[in-house]
């Protein structure tokens, strides 16, 4: 019997060391062009689960659940978990899970609105944070 996803996360919390990612994902929302760039940070405990394998569901399960309304039964806690990922595969998984498809799949414009960058390229000075955009060079 497959354990519920939350049970697997609790087990992982007990046994896995968190892993800080060396990547960040920058993205802009074409539906909200005046907003600054958003920066997605992989969670260290989640990344440990992704790299260990046999904990997280396939990302397609989240996509199927996204078509269902609240209170409808969801499948992602109950489906067979997938095997270990590399960090790069985990970042791609996270993009498809946590960033809206209109950004990573459907956008057809010329502007670069999604970028994976090493964490050291992100400024730690947030003085003009609300003016940050993705460089188009």
């Amino acid at each position, binding site marked *: 019997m497959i354990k*519920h*996803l*939350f049970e697997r*996360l609790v087990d992982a*919390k007990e046994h896995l060391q*968190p892993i*800080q990612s060396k990547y*960040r994902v920058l993205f802009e929302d074409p539906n909200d062009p005046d*907003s*600054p760039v*958003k*920066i*997605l*940070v*992989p*969670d*260290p*405990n*989640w990344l440990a*689960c992704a790299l260990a394998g046999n904990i*997280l569901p396939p990302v397609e399960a*989240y996509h199927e*659940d*996204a078509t269902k309304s*609240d*209170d409808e*039964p*969801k499948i*992602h*806690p109950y489906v067979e978990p997938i095997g270990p990922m590399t960090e790069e595969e985990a970042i791609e998984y*996270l993009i498809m*899970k*946590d960033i809206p498809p209109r950004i990573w799949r459907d956008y057809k414009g010329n502007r670069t609105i999604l970028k994976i960058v090493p*964490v050291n390229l*992100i*400024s*730690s*000075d*947030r003085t003009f*944070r*609300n003016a940050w955009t993705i460089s188009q060079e």
Partner: protein
Amino acid sequence: MSRIVIDSLQSQTTGSFADAIYLTKGVSKSWINMNGTGTIATRDSMNVSSTVDVGVALFQLNFTNTFISENYAVSGITSSPGLTNGYVSISAGSPQSTLLGVGSVSSAGSGFDPTQFHIQVKGILA
């Protein structure tokens, strides 16, 4: 794996008891302790797949195991050196069963990037 199946727990000393459902339904299903300054970073967490730095004082948590609906309860505290009484506000378009958008607000009502940003969420998981 071993499993103890019970309906309730009772204190031998006082006789007070709690139904087991309090344990399964009442615990935090997601929590995070995060630094919201500089390049934002998670110190520790549970059931969070990623955080998003949305802008000054605005953050988003994405859940690994989503909630059954948006009707969960959020509590949190936020602070920075020299600033007390920071609180957490819910962002527009949130909560959702899959994510939570939150802001960090000072007692004066202005947003600030907190060094200590703590959130916990209670509710029913999918």
